[in-house]
């Protein structure tokens, strides 16, 4: 079998590798195979090449599956449970027990949703704080809304709860304001710039 033809067949066999691996290294692998054909007996190169393909193709597919980011469905399901808990707390707000249960479900499921969502990201990239503006704003709004709902449900706040309630409300206002400021800074930093010339 001629060298170019053998190299062509080998290149065809490389199609059995996962696409990403093939796109990254396929050309280099074909080049190496051609160089081996040039320097060594054809039979030996083929024998080694076939064994190598038989072992490494399944291995690369297995690695590709293991590297695949987890399905975001889990995060979406927990987010839905969290929202349902919040809705339940608001609708059944006349009962303190129902409100507490709803908020507890919202907080726990929300935490699990965030954890699951973070797990779906393959690589954690350091980002400027201004890119997190919406998260800060969301937390601020949730804290504010929760505090207002609780105050409305409880009616008259006892002396012991007054200070924590005011501090929570204050924290909600500050966090919301911080989120708004970060969003403005983010908009300024990311505004379209005119390229000179």
């Amino acid at each position, binding site marked *: 079998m001629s060298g170019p033809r053998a190299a062509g067949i080998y290149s065809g066999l490389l199609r059995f*590798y996962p696409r990403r*691996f093939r796109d*990254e*290294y396929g*050309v*280099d*692998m074909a*080049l*190496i*195979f051609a*160089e*081996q054909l040039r320097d060594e007996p054809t039979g030996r190169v083929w024998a*080694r*090449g076939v*064994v*190598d*393909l038989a*072992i*490494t*193709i399944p*291995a*690369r597919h297995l*690695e590709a599956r293991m590297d695949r980011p987890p399905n975001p469905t889990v995060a979406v399901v927990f987010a839905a449970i969290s929202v349902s808990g919040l809705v339940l707390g608001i609708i059944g707000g006349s009962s303190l027990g129902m409100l507490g249960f709803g908020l507890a479900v919202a907080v726990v499921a929300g935490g699990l949703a965030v954890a699951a969502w973070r797990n779906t990201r393959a690589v954690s990239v350091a980002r400027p704080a201004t890119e997190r503006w919406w998260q800060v704003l969301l937390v601020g709004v949730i804290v504010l809304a929760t505090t207002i709902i609780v105050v409305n449900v409880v009616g008259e706040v006892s002396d012991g709860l007054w200070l924590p309630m005011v501090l929570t409300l204050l924290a909600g206002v500050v966090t919301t304001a911080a989120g708004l400021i970060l969003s403005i800074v983010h908009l300024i930093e990311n505004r379209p710039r005119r390229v000179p010339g």
Partner: protein
Amino acid sequence: MPRLVKPLPSASLHIVLALLDGEAHGYALIGRVAELSDGAVRMGAGTLYGTLNRLVSDGLIEETTTRVPRDDSERRRYYELTGTGRAVAVDEVVRLQGLVHRIAAHLPGGATA
């Protein structure tokens, strides 16, 4: 990056040891590995690039293809050890020296290494 505690797998070990000599492209690496192992290890391209891919991901080697202009008509990718990779390779050499020394001490006839 933390040092690897476990010994490197065979293919990774041979490649990092081969790269102690300096940067190399894939075909040269196969040759160096064969030379280092006295012809016992002849890597196929699939094994080579699968291992290189993992070593790059682990931060032990890096691609240097575009770092310097090359007098190379064909498109070849060059690799070299990172600082961590060099430290790991040296650790492996020390580990293997210790292994050989201890085994030699237990062989009939006493320590010869």
